[in-house]
């Protein structure tokens, strides 16, 4: 091979790794070097045949389960098994049953169920957020990063503060859906626990906090200044109360 670029720059060009200047320079070279044109064609043919052959091998489902089990026994990490369509179907079926039962309960009881349903959704949203990749959409401990991130994504602008000095470092924020509307969720750390705070606007009067536990998670719910707040965590109830005070002060 006599053109030395065919062994070097050509590959950088082929892989899109040259800067604009280098690429333009090489394209000028291509206009008069048939050797490089041939080499480029042969690389393209090689790549396309590799793509067609689909050589990438995914981890077998059984091994994936083994690995997750290993990690869980190594550290009690939560297991998120491979998601098969059947599994989603099962979840969907369970959800439908749950929704139907929930609806029945609502139609029987009436008044206090707003909070019951709300807490159910909020705890579910918190649990969902703990699955891989769902915790935060914007990862930052800087409220000046987190707050603007919500701009244009919601029809309101949530107050974002970092309470690291008080033992609740801001971890980030994400969008969530509760009661059929898009809301802001802020994530705080509390020692080894995570707290999700869900925030959305409302038109009702301020209300002092109510708290409780559900599915092993603590929740606390309050309304203040045209906003409704609900915090969920596996941290202690006193931790949630403290965070609630920080928010309302």
């Amino acid at each position, binding site marked *: 091979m006599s053109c030395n670029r065919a*062994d*070097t720059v050509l590959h950088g060009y082929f892989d899109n790794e040259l800067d604009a200047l280098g690429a333009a320079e090489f394209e000028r070279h291509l206009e008069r070097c048939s050797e490089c044109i*041939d080499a480029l064609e042969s*690389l393209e043919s090689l790549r396309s*045949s590799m793509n067609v052959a689909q050589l*990438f091998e995914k*981890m077998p489902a059984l091994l994936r389960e083994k690995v997750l089990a290993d990690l869980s026994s190594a550290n009690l990490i939560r297991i998120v098994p491979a998601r098969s369509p059947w599994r989603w179907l099962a979840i969907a079926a369970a959800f439908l049953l749950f929704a139907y039962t929930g609806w029945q309960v609502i139609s029987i009881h009436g008044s206090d169920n707003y909070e019951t349903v709300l807490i159910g959704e909020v705890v579910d949203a918190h649990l969902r957020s703990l699955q891989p990749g*769902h915790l935060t959409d914007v990862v930052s401990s800087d409220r000046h990063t987190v707050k603007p991130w919500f701009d244009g994504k919601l029809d309101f602008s949530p107050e974002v503060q970092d309470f690291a000095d008080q033992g609740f470092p801001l971890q980030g924020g994400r969008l969530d859906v509760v009661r059929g509307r898009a809301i802001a969720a802020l994530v705080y750390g509390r020692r080894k626990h995570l707290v999700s705070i869900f925030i959305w606007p409302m038109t009702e009067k301020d209300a002092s906090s109510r708290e409780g536990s559900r599915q092993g998670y603590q929740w606390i719910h309050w309304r203040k200044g045209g906003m409704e707040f609900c915090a969920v965590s596996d941290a202690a109830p006193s931790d949630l109360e403290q965070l609630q005070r920080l928010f309302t002060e």
Partner: protein
Amino acid sequence: MSSPAQGEGFDVLDAQDQVRFEMLVLPHLDAAFNLARWLLRSGADAEDVAQEAMLRAFRFFHGFHGADVRAWLLQIVRNTCYTWLEKNRHVKDMTEFDEDLHGLRSATPEMLAIAGDNRERLTRALESLSPRFRELIVLRELEGCSYKEIATIASIPMGTVMSSLSRARRQLQLALADTARPEVNHEL
């Protein structure tokens, strides 16, 4: 980026690290397995080694503060593979591709096209490369790594990625030309 081969391992991650591990590392399980499968040329061996590599990643995760978690994970997988290869004394795996053996016939696009759609031929050709060349091809073409990531994972200087890839591709083309014309190969 901290080297996974050094430093103290931490068997227990705190809750935040656990969540980070799930968020950042677990999405790359397929990439980890794919690299192991091609470096070891065996799905069965790759299962053992990928499993071991994930445990190592879990132990070393506490010390990871870099930006590219996939490159970090693939580096661990690669190192675990090489350790395994050395331990299991696959000597011929460690030998470099022999150009004389494969001849220096040029591989034309036509010859490559004959071999092109054939997964079996591509697999054989890729597996005939030395691991050092094979890993470059796998990282670039199968895992879609950038040159920077390849330099990190394969522990080679950034400046040599381009020329090394060039050599690796040349060898692959030659090997493919061989598998495309097996009868010629036997006559030699």
